[in-house]
């Protein structure tokens, strides 16, 4: 079934607050081999001009991918979850994510099209602090492979 272009621009209610912890940043950094002390050591982070330890460049996915998946739960979108793979990912950092951030994710459908039987849906997740400071724009293109 082809994706409905009228879905483009659809926005979903903001997520619950995700509070970024020092231990989670350190755990994620260790998992991707990011050894820079700004991820692990508060003093090193402060010496580098940050208010607290900062997250590695792709950490936002921890919050944003789940937020993007709200589109999969939308019956009017009708993507077959069992056939969905991650096609593309983009991050635009407005500032580094740091420990203590209380982030809210707001998801919008930026593009929806069907190419060669595959449904391609682009979900843009705006991560901001609960006070409204823009932190990161995380854009995920999800592909639902057409049945062969």
């Amino acid at each position, binding site marked *: 079934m082809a994706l409905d272009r009228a879905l483009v621009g659809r926005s979903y209610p903001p997520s619950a607050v995700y509070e970024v912890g020092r231990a989670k940043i350190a755990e994620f950094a260790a998992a991707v081999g990011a050894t820079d002390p700004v991820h692990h050591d508060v003093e090193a982070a402060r010496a580098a001009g940050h208010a607290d330890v900062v997250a*590695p460049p*792709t950490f936002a996915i921890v919050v944003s991918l789940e937020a993007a998946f709200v589109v999969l739960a939308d019956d009017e979108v009708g993507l077959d979850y069992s056939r969905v793979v991650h096609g593309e990912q983009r991050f635009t950092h407005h500032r580094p994510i740091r420990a203590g951030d209380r982030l809210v994710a707001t998801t919008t459908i930026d593009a929806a099209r069907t190419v060669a039987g595959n449904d391609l849906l682009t979900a843009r997740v705006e991560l901001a602090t609960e006070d409204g400071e823009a932190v990161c724009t995380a854009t995920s293109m999800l592909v639902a492979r057409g049945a062969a």
Partner: protein
Amino acid sequence: MTAEVGTELPELVVRVTRADLVRYAGASGDFNPIHWNERVAREVGLPGVIAHGMLTMALAARAVTGWTGDPAALLEYQVRFGRPVVVPDDDSGAELTVRGTVAALLDGGRARVDLTVTSAGEKVLSLARAVVRLG
């Protein structure tokens, strides 16, 4: 750090084992079994357990942050997941090679870096690009 168009970043070679996939699953919250369960991976038509695309993306970023020396200098980063990285059930795992080249100098003291990420001789990411703030 000098940057002009054509400047090549130091090559990064990194190994990914099944244990790394389990660790990344826990850290990221992505517990899709195709990243740790051979049976499920094969049932969905994959040649075996594959790395999380987001893990490959994160590892490739290290070539950029290692070059700039400042993880916060990576302002924009995008990839297309082209080909899965199959991770064998052994101690050595899969090998990723990341090469980067400065493709353009941008305003505001920024540069665009284009990345080539290969495993077993095949490109696994395409359109992999970063925008960094230079020194």
